[in-house]
C-alpha cells in the first residue's frame, strides 16, 4: 500500500518547524524554549514535544515572568509544565528589580515589558543558554519580516539587522563564540490564522483569557485594558464590564483585549479571518509609541 495522505499547508509548516527545532537541538549545546503560556509558545512547545517523542524534551522551558501576568496564564503555565512533565525555569523581573539590575517604571504608562530584556539576558548568562526558541512570526510586524530562523545575538544580546547570516536553502550556520546566542524562530512562516487552525487541528488547550469572558476594563488609546491595580488610571478612565477576549497574552499593563463573543477556537478563527485589525494593532499598547519601536527593542536583545 503506497497511499500518501494529501498534504496541507499546516503539514508543511509543521514539518518545517520541527526541522528547525531538531537542527537547533542537535547543533546547540544548551537550548531553552521560551514559554509564556501564550498561544504561539504553546504551539511551539507542542511541536517540540512531537519532534522528540516518545523521548522527553532535550531542553527546558523558561518563562520570563514580569510579575504582571494574567493569573489565568500563570496557572496554565504551571499546569502545562506538570502535564507534559518537563522542566520549567521561571526568571522573575521582580528579582532583577530587587537586585537593582533594573528600576521599576512608575506613572501612567508604567510597564515591565521593557524590563524583561535584562531579566532574560541575565537568565541566559546564568544558565549559559546558547539558543532560545521563540514563537515569533514574520507576519507579526515589519521588522520581524526580516528575521532569520537562526537569529544571531552578540555577547550583549544585540541583534544586528544589517549583518544577518544568510540562510540559503535550509542550511543554517549554527556557529557561536563564547557568550553569543541564537534566537531560534521555528514558527517564522506561520500566520495568526495558521496558529489558530493548528490549535484547532491538534485540539490544544489554551489559557481561558483567549476566549470571550466578562471582565472589568477601561478604554485607553482605543484599547480595552484590564482594570487591575497594576495599571494606574486617570480620573476620566472609567471602568466598565465588557465581554472581551485577548488576542495575545503579554504583560497585563500593555496588552489590550477586544470586545468579542468568540468562545470557541472555531469562533475565534472565524472572527480573526474577518478582523480588520492586526494582532499587534489590537493588543500592544507600547508599540504605538514609535514606528521603529520594535526594531529598537530587538536590537537591544528584546524577544
Amino acid at each position, binding site marked *: *500500500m*503506497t*497511499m*500518501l*495522505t*494529501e*498534504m496541507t*499547508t499546516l*503539514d*508543511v*509548516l509543521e*514539518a*518545517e518547524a*520541527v*526541522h528547525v527545532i*531538531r*537542527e537547533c*537541538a*542537535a547543533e546547540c549545546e544548551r537550548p531553552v524554549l521560551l514559554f509564556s503560556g501564550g498561544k504561539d509558545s504553546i504551539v511551539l512547545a507542542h511541536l517540540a514535544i*512531537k*519532534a*522528540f*517523542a*516518545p*523521548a522527553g524534551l532535550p531542553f527546558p522551558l523558561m518563562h520570563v515572568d514580569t510579575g504582571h501576568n494574567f493569573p489565568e496564564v500563570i496557572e496554565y503555565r504551571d499546569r502545562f509544565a506538570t502535564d507534559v512533565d518537563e522542566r520549567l525555569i521561571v526568571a522573575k523581573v521582580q528579582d532583577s528589580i530587587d537586585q537593582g539590575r533594573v528600576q521599576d517604571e512608575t506613572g501612567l504608562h508604567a510597564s515591565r515589558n521593557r524590563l524583561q530584556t535584562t531579566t532574560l539576558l541575565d537568565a541566559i548568562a546564568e544558565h549559559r543558554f546558547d539558543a532560545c526558541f521563540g514563537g515569533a512570526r*514574520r*507576519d507579526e*510586524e*515589519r*521588522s*520581524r*519580516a*526580516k528575521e532569520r530562523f537562526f537569529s544571531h545575538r552578540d555577547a550583549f544580546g544585540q541583534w544586528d*539587522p*544589517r549583518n*544577518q*547570516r*544568510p*540562510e*540559503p*536553502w*535550509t*542550511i*543554517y*550556520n549554527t*556557529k*557561536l*563564540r563564547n557568550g553569543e546566542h541564537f534566537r531560534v524562530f521555528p514558527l*517564522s*512562516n506561520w*500566520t495568526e490564522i495558521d496558529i489558530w487552525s493548528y490549535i484547532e487541528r491538534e485540539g490544544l488547550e489554551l489559557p481561558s483569557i483567549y476566549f470571550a469572558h466578562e471582565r472589568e476594563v477601561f478604554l485607553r488609546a482605543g484599547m480595552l485594558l484590564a482594570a487591575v491595580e497594576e495599571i494606574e488610571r486617570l480620573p476620566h478612565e472609567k471602568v466598565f464590564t465588557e465581554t472581551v477576549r485577548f488576542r495575545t497574552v503579554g504583560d497585563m499593563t500593555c496588552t489590550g483585549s477586544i470586545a468579542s463573543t468568540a468562545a470557541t477556537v472555531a469562533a475565534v478563527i472565524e472572527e480573526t479571518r474577518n*478582523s*480588520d*485589525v*492586526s494582532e499587534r*494593532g*489590537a493588543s500592544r499598547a507600547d508599540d504605538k509609541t514609535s*514606528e*521603529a519601536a520594535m*526594531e529598537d527593542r530587538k536590537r537591544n536583545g528584546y524577544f
Partner: protein
Amino acid sequence: MPVETPKLHVVAVGSVDDGKSTLIGRLLYETGHLRGDEIEAVEEASRKRGRKGIDLALLTDGLRAEREQGITIDVAYRSFDANGRRILLGDAPGHVQYTRNMVTAAAGADAAILLVDAKNGTTAQTRRHLAICGMLGVRDVIACVNKIDLVDYDEARFIEIADELVASAAQIDGPRITAIPLSALNGVNLTEHSPETPWYDGPTVLEVLHDLDPPVIETAFRMPVQWVIRHDEGTHDIRGLAGRIDSGAVTVGDEIVALPSGATSRIARIDVLGDERESASAPLSVTLHLEDDIDVSRGDVIALAAEPPLVATRIRATVAWLDEQPLTIPARLEARQSTRTVPVIVEELHERLELDTMEHVPTDVLEANDLGVVSILAAQPLVLETYADNRALGSLMLIDPATNRSVAAVMVSNVLAG
C-alpha cells in the same frame, strides 16, 4: 509519486527603485492580505515622508536603516494565499552590494518576480539577477516591465524589453520567462487586466502566481538524519531516526541504505509526528524505525537501497561568494552540507562568471557577490548529488571557522572520484 506540496517559495528581485516594494505592497493590498491598521500605519509613514497618497513600498521596507535610505537591505518575507496555496514571498534587496542577500532569498525559490524599469530597460543588474536565478534552479521568472505608465503604455517598448529578457535567459539556458507590462503604482496588470494596455492579452502577475507549477521535489527517497531518538520502552529500547524527508517517498518494508557507511536494513515503522503511516513523502518531518539495529547517527543519509546517492570527498561546484574577505586558493574552510559539518579545502578556482556578458573568465580571486567555479576537497566523505539532480544533497554552505561567517553558497555540478 510524491504528492503536491501546497506551498511555493517566490522571490522578488530587481534593481533599486524599479518598484519591487510597491509591487509587493500593492499585491498584498489588492488580494486582501492587509488589515486596516496596517494600511493606516503605512498611510501615516507615507505622510511623514511627505508622499502624496499611500506609498505601499513602506509596508515591506521594515528596517529603520532601510527606511532612512529608502532601499531594501535585507530579505523580508511575507506569506500570502493564492488559489489555495501558500506563497512565501521573499523581497530581496536590489543593490549590487547586496547580491548575496538575493542569493539567499532565491536559494530554494520555485519562481522569481523580476522587475525591469520600462524607461531604463534591462541592465547589467537584470542580467545578473537572471543568471543567479538560472544558477539556483529557479524555474519560472515573472518578468515585470514596470512603470509602463512612464512610457505611455507603449507596446513597442514592452516588446523590445521582453525580447531582451528572453534572449538573456536563452544565453544561460535559464528559466522560463513570462513578461508582463506593469504599473505597480497604478495596479495595471497586477491582479486585474487593464484598459491601459489593450494590446496585452497575456496573464496578470496574480494569474501567473495562481498557475505556477508545484515545486519540483525529486523522486528518489532521501532523508538526512538530524537526531536519533532513544527511548527505553520497558521491554526494549526504541531507536528512531528523526529527520525531514528531502525528496521522494518511503514505505514500510522498503529496503534502505544508510550512507556513508553503506549498512542496509528495512523500514519497520514510519512515525509522522505521532501519526503512524504506511508511507510518507517530502517535505515531511518523520521518525523512521528500522528492522535492524544498524549504526546510524546524525549526519548520515537514509536512501532507498535501489537508488542511492553518491559518497565522495571531491566536488566541482559553482559558488556564490558572500563574504567581504575575498576567496583565494587554497582556502581552509568548513562546509555545512545536509546535516553534516566537515573541514574542506577549496583547492582550485577555475573561473569566474562575468555576469554582465555571461562569459567564463579565468581568475585567481573571487570577491564578494562574485560567482565562480571551484574544486573542493572534503576531509570526510559526504553523501552527495549534483544540484541539478537533488537540491538538498547538492547544496552546501561554506563557513570560515576563523570568523564564523557564512562565506559561500555552493551548488555541486560534478561529484568527482577519489
